[in-house]
């Protein structure tokens, strides 16, 4: 249930160019639609930007799949959380609301949800996913933890995220300053 290579998201390297989204649109499974996001965090004060890809949650496994009432989201043995099967998806958007990262996208015209499947047509045969393959700055990097550890001094890679009382371990990683081992997101609201 683990991925030998995964995506490492390093916001400190992101130049906000949008090559990742441009490349995501080129995936043969969903041409013309980007299934990832890129945000300028606060453009009024900074040029800092952050790409968001599906993190392919491991433990608890794939909240999006767990809340799907029709089992449309397959989690394959290699840990990849697939896009909802169009023949099953009923467009209820449970997965859209269940995802902690805001990744699944609801297509109003199709009444279907699409999400990143880690470019399964590519990664299942050893190629990198489109977004990380093209990323000019290695803000999205597809490889192993050892490679990242060796090449990025003073940085740590974390795959554990804390949302209030809920801890989540993911298949993809975030690269952060070295003092972090878990990224904690403060609870918003009551």
């Amino acid at each position: 249930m683990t991925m030998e290579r995964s995506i490492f998201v390093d916001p400190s390297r992101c130049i906000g160019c949008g090559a990742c989204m441009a490349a995501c649109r080129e995936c043969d499974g969903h041409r013309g639609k980007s299934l990832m996001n890129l945000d300028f965090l606060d453009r009024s004060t900074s040029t800092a930007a952050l790409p968001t890809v599906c993190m392919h949650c491991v433990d608890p496994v794939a909240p999006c799949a767990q809340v799907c009432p029709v089992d449309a989201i397959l989690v394959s043995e290699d840990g990849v959380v697939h896009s909802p099967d169009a023949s099953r998806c009923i467009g209820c958007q449970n997965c859209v609301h269940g995802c902690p990262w805001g990744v699944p996208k609801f297509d109003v015209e199709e009444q279907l949800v699409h999400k990143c499947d880690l470019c399964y047509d590519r990664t299942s045969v050893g190629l990198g996913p489109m977004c990380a393959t093209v990323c000019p700055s290695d803000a999205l990097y597809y490889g192993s933890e050892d490679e990242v550890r060796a090449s990025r001094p003073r940085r740590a890679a974390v795959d554990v995220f804390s949302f209030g009382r809920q801890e989540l371990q993911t298949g993809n990683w975030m690269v952060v300053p070295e003092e972090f081992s878990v990224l904690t997101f403060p609870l918003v609201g009551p």
Partner: protein
Amino acid sequence: MTDTGRRRPFRHLTPPGVDDLHSAGGDAAGRWETDKPDERWVATHCAFCGVQCGMHLRVVGDEVIGVEPRMDTHNRGKLCPKGVAAYQQISHADRLTYPLVRDADGLRRATWDEALDRVVDGIRRVQTAGGPDAMATYGGASMVNEKTYMLGKFARVGLGTRFTDYNGRMCMVSAGAANYRSFGIDRTANPITDVAMADVLLVLGANVPETFPIYIRWFWEAMDRGATMICVDPRETTLARVAQLHLPIRPGTDGALLNAMLHVVVHEGMLDEEFIAAHTSGFEEAKAAVEPWTPARAADTCGVPAADIVRAAELFGSADKAMLSHARGLEHQVMGSRNAMAAINLCLATGNIGRPGAGYGTITGQGNGQGGREHGQKCDQLPGMRHFTDPGAIEHVAGVWGIDPSEMPEPGEPIFRQLERMEAGEIRGLLNICSNPMVSWPDQGRTQRILEGLDLYVVIDIFLSESALLADVVLPGSAWAETEGVVANSDALVCKINKAVDPPGEAKPDIWILTEIARRLGREEQFPHMSAREVYDELRRASTGGRADYTGITYERLEAEGPIAWPCPTDDHPGTPRMFEDLRFYTDDGKAHFNAVEVDPPAEEPDDDYPIRLTTGRNVAQYLSGNQTRRLGYLSDQTPAPWVEIHPNTAAAHGISDGSPVRVTSRWGTTVLPALVVRTIRQDTVFIPYHWGHPVAANQLTKASFDPISWIPAFKTAAVRIEASDEAAWAVTPPPVHQGGAR
């Protein structure tokens, strides 16, 4: 790295083809089974920018349907958004597919014969009335070298005119002039990969992440190694954001800054005296010129603290290996060439040249920005980067071209001097290929008056640009994936562009068009119809013995070995990625030359009427005048229209809020744009990206003022006033976009 207790075993998978780092040529279709059995992959390089990323074009039948990353040496599969979308222009619905001629009702469809007759008759009329020099050509550095070479030959031999120039006049000419005066040769000294090996990086006027995204990895690699980054830019770019030292100087004051840095280097004993004595000349004059430029004086001029200038100089001067890189920010000024000379002075004074990780680089913008200035479309140049001042060069090239040396026209003039001759009625005709002056030239109103006033104005392009709309005849040419050819990238690496499909409809290869016009003008002997390969072989012969010597760079070698850096004089020469490693220079005395730099103020200084500095520049999703990228769905979605970047304090003082319309007015024009209110720009400066045409063209606001050495326009230093506007920001009507992915 914190031990999470969940570390996974790692097994390296080698994707098919990934180790094949030199697959410049050939068809990689065999390596990947697709569900489209007739899909073939054409290995090539990107259409946009001087990085020249390797890519595969995915072709089905006669249509390019997509892009597949390619593990080429310098981009290793990486692409910026322009690179990903580049293929979408090839089969774009807006492509020009038949010739157009102007009659009383405007442009209408014509046959090739009718259109070419119109061109040839027009040229004859213009040249009969005003002599051969009454006709001019204007080319572009996005064309492959086969086309730029052919244009230079077409002008000198086909038309017999001395007036040819190209749009690198707005790109590389300041750096080129400085390179010539300092090193005797015009190309980047160190490859960009040297950045990764440097201890200190000084980046001036180069928004690397936005304009050369692929190059940013070398900067990140340097910083991972512990290198110190100094970034000089009036805006906080994503590079400046992570730099140890950011100097947000006033636009147009780079020369003062660099002179002050050399002043500090001199006074703090950080000179490489041994290097200066053995390998340079002119140091005493350069030293005398920087003497008045104390850090305090420069701080006043540049608008940054003196202590930061001193710190930058100390970091650069004390480094074992320092790399200085600059781009158009420093060059688009009346001081452009002198700024670049001041940058080179600093490198020479500290012995930073000719070593791995220590040196100097001008980052070239256009796809063939380096090659476009080597083989004859530039006004003062003959193929192989030869000069008219060398009688041997004229004889050699005349021999290759099959003309008598006495027939060779005199050297020409920069396009912006030619414009004065157009205004005076001396030049009456212009053939413009691959350029869009109505967006890219300063003072758009003047540009339009000049183009409309010509007796004959011919455009060869792939789309109906703002400038083509004014033409008497528009000839549909070929896009980059429709002919074979080579380009020289920012590092002077010659890269092979491969043909994927034929031009659409009745569109023709540009070489065919130029050849056909020349033949119809009676130059059949010098202009047989040639394939791209035949043109290239002629170009190589013409370049033999010149500074940009391509003799040893054959199509076969490029296909087998991948990109090769010139000079490469023989078949077994490995190419020259890094210049001056032997510390011998291409100058008359073999030494690198210091040039004393006197600092002049910018062309326009802000005053009471126009109190704000306007600087123009680029956006990552657009390329040059936007004639291609504004039509490509994803890119157009990212930045459908320009904006004006304003500091919050300045915005508040004018009652402007984020997103609200702002009227920006200069002495030369006015426009209304939405505000982007950000802290990432100086308070006294606003920024507008320039890729769009009227009515939102940044170049409505810029003054037609030029560097007296290089004749580059001073795009970076206009003076404007800003006002909150109650008009809706003029919406650009984007051309119909072709959503390439959703087919």
